[in-house]
């Protein structure tokens, strides 16, 4: 049975993690600067951002390994101030997996259960169940040193899930795996999260990982949260150039604001003419200038005499072949920077010679206005 589209899945609206104006300073340096965020129950939430932007810092404060310099964190309605890591309803999957080397897989998974003093059979049942959830059945007697990277990751996952936490925190859990395994684990992790219904908070610097797995994403830069939204909105309606750039290639065109009202923005551009776009949520006008963006895959090559309602004309100056797609760099008269166009290769975009004059079609809905 195919998975239901994400937007149709029932979303619980109860807040699970609330972060209120949290700052973490190291001397005068702020690793996290006045961050506020609400993560809902049952949500797959990602913290996305470049290296050093404070993702791990935030995650470790939720787990209790670090404390905010100022601000409050609460989990499931309960303030976490003064509550040590071992008494928080959260569990963590560490980036290095942190599998206990002196214990075998079963003992690793049962580690946290030991303290609960369950009946032997109940403990065994829960360990078996957790191992089955991560497809490790039968490997219980192996030592950590006898496991592959992917298997170690599953042990770390099972060891945390077996505790039935309210929140599972994952710090770049897939970054040590090779590409193929990583993509497989992305799907599995997502499926697992839906099966157990636990709130997942994933830290990643891989935008595709965040887009593919999350219900919502917080994009962070330099200790600040730039945007919190669904993957689609983050990708299609980035709040500023930095976010747009981090989420993949984007063509930026200089724009002049002609009219601004409640929900829309009318801008004048060279190349694309006068365009009316939705106004981004956190748009703050900075004089009369703005930026208009369009993703390379939203520009289409018009073949032969085909016409479109909205088109721009230009000349191919570069061509890069990538197997199933081709990147064309197209110079448009009046634009200071050429446009980057991604075209699938089924119509022969890979055969367009450099120097050819072509026309590009676009959908005005694909144009997005941004603060600079």
């Amino acid at each position, binding site marked *: 049975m195919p998975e239901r589209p994400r937007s149709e899945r029932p979303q619980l609206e109860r807040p699970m993690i609330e972060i209120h104006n949290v700052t973490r300073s190291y001397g005068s340096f702020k690793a996290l600067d006045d961050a506020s965020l609400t993560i809902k129950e049952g949500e797959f939430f990602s913290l996305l951002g470049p290296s050093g932007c404070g993702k791990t810092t935030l995650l470790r404060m939720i*787990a209790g*390994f670090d404390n905010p310099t100022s601000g409050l964190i609460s989990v499931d309605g309960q303030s976490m101030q003064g509550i*040590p*890591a*071992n*008494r928080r309803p*959260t*569990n*963590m999957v*560490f980036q*290095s997996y*942190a599998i*206990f*080397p*002196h*214990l075998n897989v079963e*003992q690793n998974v049962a*580690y*946290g259960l030991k*303290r609960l003093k369950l009946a032997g059979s109940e403990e065994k049942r829960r360990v078996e169940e957790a191992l089955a959830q991560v497809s490790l059945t039968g490997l219980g007697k192996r030592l950590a040193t006898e496991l592959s990277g992917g298997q170690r990751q599953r042990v770390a996952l099972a*060891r*945390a899930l077996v*505790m039935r936490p309210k929140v599972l925190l994952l710090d770049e859990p897939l970054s040590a795996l090779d590409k193929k395994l990583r993509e497989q684990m992305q799907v599995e992790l997502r499926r697992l999260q839906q099966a157990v219904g636990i709130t997942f908070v994933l830290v990643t610097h891989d935008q595709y990982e965040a887009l593919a797995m999350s219900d919502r994403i917080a994009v962070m830069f330099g200790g600040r949260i730039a945007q919190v939204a669904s993957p689609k909105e983050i990708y299609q309606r980035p709040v500023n150039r930095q976010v747009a750039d981090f989420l993949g290639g984007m063509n930026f065109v200089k724009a002049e604001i002609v009219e601004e009202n409640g929900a829309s923005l009318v801008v004048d551009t060279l190349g694309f003419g006068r365009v009316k776009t939705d106004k981004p949520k956190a748009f703050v006008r900075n004089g009369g200038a703005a930026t208009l963006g369009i993703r390379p895959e939203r520009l289409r090559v018009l073949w032969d005499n085909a016409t479109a309602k909205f088109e721009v004309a230009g000349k191919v100056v570069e061509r890069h072949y990538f197997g199933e797609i081709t990147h064309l760099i197209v110079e448009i008269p009046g634009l200071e920077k050429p446009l980057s166009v991604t075209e699938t290769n089924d119509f022969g975009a890979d055969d367009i010679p450099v120097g050819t004059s072509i026309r590009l079609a676009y959908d005005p809905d694909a144009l997005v206005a941004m603060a600079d």
Partner: protein
Amino acid sequence: MTAAAEGAPAFGMTRARRNALLQSESVQGFALISPTFLYALILLVLPILVVIAHSFWTQNYLTIDRTFTLENYRAALTEPIYRDLLWRSLYISLMVSFFTVVLAYPIAYFISFHGGRHKSLWLFLITIPFWTSYLLRVMSWKVILGYNGVLNSGLMGLGLIDEPSTALLYNSSAVIITLTHAWAAFAILPIFVSLEKVDRTLVEAATDLGDGPIRSFLRVTLPLSAPGIISAALIVMIPTVGDYVTPKLVGGKDGVMIANAIQAQFGKASNWPLGAALSVTTMLIVTLMAGATVVIIRAAQRLAR
């Protein structure tokens, strides 16, 4: 090596073949270990062989009768005096290893986990007492534990005792105290090294799974530092069994150890074969005890899971 390889061709051996030989890993390996190997052979293996040979012979006043006999071993194992000395030596060395490890562990733990940026400074400070001669350090314990010593005066000053206690010096406890102090630094280092190797995220993982500081220490840090505990215990245990200076200086009549008896046989008593048999017996028993220590610590480590 390069100089030899580039020299003129040797007799009957082509340059290429000789180079191949010189570069082969086993030859290089042997070349690298040969000085140590020779050293060990001359200074360790030969003397031991001589001792073992003597243990099967008989002393005939000034000459040695070289007919094979087990008489020396019979004496070493059955004469009450030697048996008692052997037991006492083993007891003392076990106690010393135990106390040394128990005292050294917290120090090593503190330096490793809370030493911050000054770890090497701390380690350096620990070595300072060892800049003085061992004899001086033993003597200073005599000053502390003696009849008119620091401890007795202190206790009398506090009114806890009326006259100086003679129970402090010249017995096995004095030997244990002195040896424990003498070996502390040697036990701190291996424990420190093994604690340094404990991945700190493992402790965090234990905390994350619900363990408080004491539980995570007992379930993660302690078992993972077991190799350091084993080496520390062995480093202390093996040489202390055969120590003879310390019992001589602070042991008195009740603190005599097997090494003092061995020394007497090679010295005043002039019965080398018996001395040799006592040495070999001690060596074998120490080996057994060391093996048992490793097994016991490993078993304890397994139980802690």
